[in-house]
């Protein structure tokens, strides 16, 4: 019975992020109705604002599940988008641009994880080094190949792809791939187990280095798709492109109920739930005409509360013996 009640409370904790999203949606609709806001247009905005974060965060779940952390996702996306734009300008092919964006992001991710494996460093450390390197690289790329401080792709070339339906299609395809590999393949089970206890995973025959490399590849794929969609949404790229993505991804994943320590409780849908919740929260505060400083503070408080609650509930399940 004791265990049953613990399981029920664990299940309630798991459902909390989705419940939070539903509540936020309710608040949003109520305020929108009261203020006569165009709801379909607002939803379109929400999708536009959150979809790139959703895709990148969904890929990043593979890294977080292992208990690792990548601080260079935004910089990686910026460089991938710049290289993708250069590829388009050289070939006039959107397909080539897509492939280059994805290839470049996967290559950057692989470099981080392979460096960590070769030098036996925590992945976090290599991603810090990659962050500096990628920031420098984006400056060099713009200086050598750009016009002024930007690299541009003709807006006409990508305009047709800048639709909500296309973005939803890309996200659905990527999410389906992630759900399949994470929930219905050995890979996901092995990732979660390794994140939960790397030593036990090793003694269960799992290869943490191989899993880390695959995890980073999946994250790279998400970053590459995010870079491609960034070009279609804003074809003028600068060094500040995707600068907030890294932080948005972290916040979304935590908002979505993903444990910061990774492991068995990791879930793919956390990224989508978290990104949508975060965007809805921003929209609500915008509709309430809150000062941007106050909005940031509210977000920070909610972020801390979510982390505290998730860690507190985890501690409670461990302590009594």
């Amino acid at each position, binding site marked *: *019975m*004791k*265990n*049953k*009640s*613990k*399981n029920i*409370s*664990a299940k309630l904790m798991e459902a909390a992020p989705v419940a939070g999203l539903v509540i936020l949606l309710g608040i949003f609709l109520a305020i929108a109705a009261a203020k006569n806001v165009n709801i379909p247009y607002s939803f379109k905005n929400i999708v536009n604002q959150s979809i790139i974060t959703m895709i990148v965060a969904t890929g990043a779940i593979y890294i977080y599940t292992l208990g690792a952390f990548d601080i260079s996702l935004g910089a990686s996306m910026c460089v991938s988008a710049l290289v993708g734009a250069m590829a388009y300008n050289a070939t006039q092919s959107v397909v080539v641009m897509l492939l280059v964006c994805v290839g470049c992001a996967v290559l950057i991710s692989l470099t981080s994880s392979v460096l960590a494996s070769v030098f036996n460093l925590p992945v976090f450390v290599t991603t810090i080094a990659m962050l500096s390197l990628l920031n420098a690289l984006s400056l060099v790329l713009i200086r050598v190949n750009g016009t002024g401080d930007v690299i541009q792709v003709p807006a006409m070339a990508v305009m047709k792809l800048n639709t909500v339906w296309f973005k939803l299609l890309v996200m659905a395809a990527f999410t389906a791939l992630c759900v399949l590999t994470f929930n*219905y*393949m*050995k*890979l996901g*089970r*092995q990732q*979660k*187990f390794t994140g*939960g*206890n790397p*030593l*036990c*995973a*090793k*003694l*269960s*025959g*799992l*290869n943490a280095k191989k899993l880390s490399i695959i995890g980073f590849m999946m994250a790279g794929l998400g970053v590459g798709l995010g870079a491609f969609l960034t070009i279609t949404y804003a074809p003028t790229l600068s060094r500040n492109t995707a600068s907030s993505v890294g932080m948005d991804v972290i916040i979304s994943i935590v908002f979505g109920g993903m444990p910061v320590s990774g*492991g*068995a*409780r990791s879930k793919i849908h956390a990224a989508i739930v978290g990104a949508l919740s975060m965007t809805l929260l921003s929209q609500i505060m915008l509709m309430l005409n809150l000062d941007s400083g106050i909005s940031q503070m509210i977000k920070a408080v909610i972020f801390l509360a979510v982390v505290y609650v998730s860690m507190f509930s*985890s501690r409670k*399940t*461990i*302590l*009594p*013996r």
Partner: protein
Amino acid sequence: MPDIVEIKNMSKRFGPTVALDDVSLSACSGEVLGLIGENGSGKSTATSIYAGMQKCDEGTMLFKGQPWNPLSMNDALAKGVGMIVQENGTVPGISAAENIFLGETAEFTNGLFVNRKKMIEKAQNALDRIGADHINAALPAGALDFQDRKLVEIARVMEKNPDVLVVDETTTALSQKGRDIIYRIMEEMKNAGKTVIFISHDLDEIMNRCDRLTVLRDGKIIRTFNSDEFEEGAIKAAMIGRELSGSYYRDDYEEETESETVLTAEHLNLTDQLIDFSMEVRKGEILGIGGLSHCGMHTLGKVLFAAEKAESGTIKVHDHTYENEAAAMKEGIGYVAKDRDTESLVLEASIKDNIAIAGLDRIAVKKHFIFRKNENRYVDEQVASLSIKCNDSSQYVSTLSGGNKQKVAFGKWMGRDSQILILDCPTRGVDIGVKQSMYQLMYRMKQEGKSIILISEEMAELIGMSDRLLIMKDGRLQKELKRSRELSEADVIEYMI
């Protein structure tokens, strides 16, 4: 003698479960009170409440006749009640010295800076005083083995010179040397008119060391035995509520094992842990490996599973060599580690996750795809055959009792039908009921033609279960003993020391 510890009508619930139901007990000065009961009977809950780890829902506590409500374990220890917990109670990332003076580094500060030298000196003295002088107080706790970490914990408690010491199933993690340290501390405390509450599953040990023995079952006090009433059968019956039927260990002595050799290790060397060590394991054999804790037997288990690499020598299964754990598993080897909670299980994962992980290649459809139905069937078979007490297989392992956790660790390898199972201290910290079922399971596996390498610090277990017994000393094979009715612990000890 006046009562030092008094617990009156204590109740504790976790959700709807009653962990302690109106428990009253007392221990007086100069007494060693034993607490015994099956896993989950409430022994640790009652003592951990007294030692400040958690709060009770109802009841009162007295310490030296005064109301007793410690705010935390540190508070209790500062006021005279210390507890050594069953599992790991040290922080791995800091030194042994910092563990001993955890939360008290201010005592060693000169202005802004901590005088590490002074702290290490004082910690080393604390270790030396309990007889653990082989531990370097400056080393990180994570670099010490399980036994030495336990000794660091004991030094931390004893440094405060407590009036009451709770020893919670600690001895099962220790070699004879470690046990002797605890026994000496208990004896010294008793002679000094202090109180010890001693929790153990080892009936011989608890009968030898305690003045009185209280049996708990399902959160209730069943009976308290005075030393002149100690009788093994009566205590066991009180513990499990029935007479234990069947043999505890296997009772065959004539049965010959098959001659087919399944695993061969030749001339293994690894620092001072393995020195020119050779052995072979036969089909359907239970091969016992015994010795003092640091004799190299635990390292041998890891080397045989390829979790550690020998510097030289070869290991073959049916003439195949293997390089890593995954390859060992493909050769049909399974490994249950000594340090269950950190090496054998992911505590914050479900029973299903833990059992299925080693058998994913067996569950997977087309090598990679996992369907819930297949996975559930695979796991449920193990849960049923091992009688794991749980609501369902999605329950977190951290919520299980020690014995059931160990069954999950077994289930991981049983599920994939491992033909050679390396068990390192498989019955550590489990009660006699679970122990018996594990021995029966080992015997059943033997009869199915599976081979078991049983590494243990419990001589009775080794003698009772092994077909052959290899005794190790200082990394070397000291003696091979055959199964026999006449084999006694004294015969075995002779080669260990």
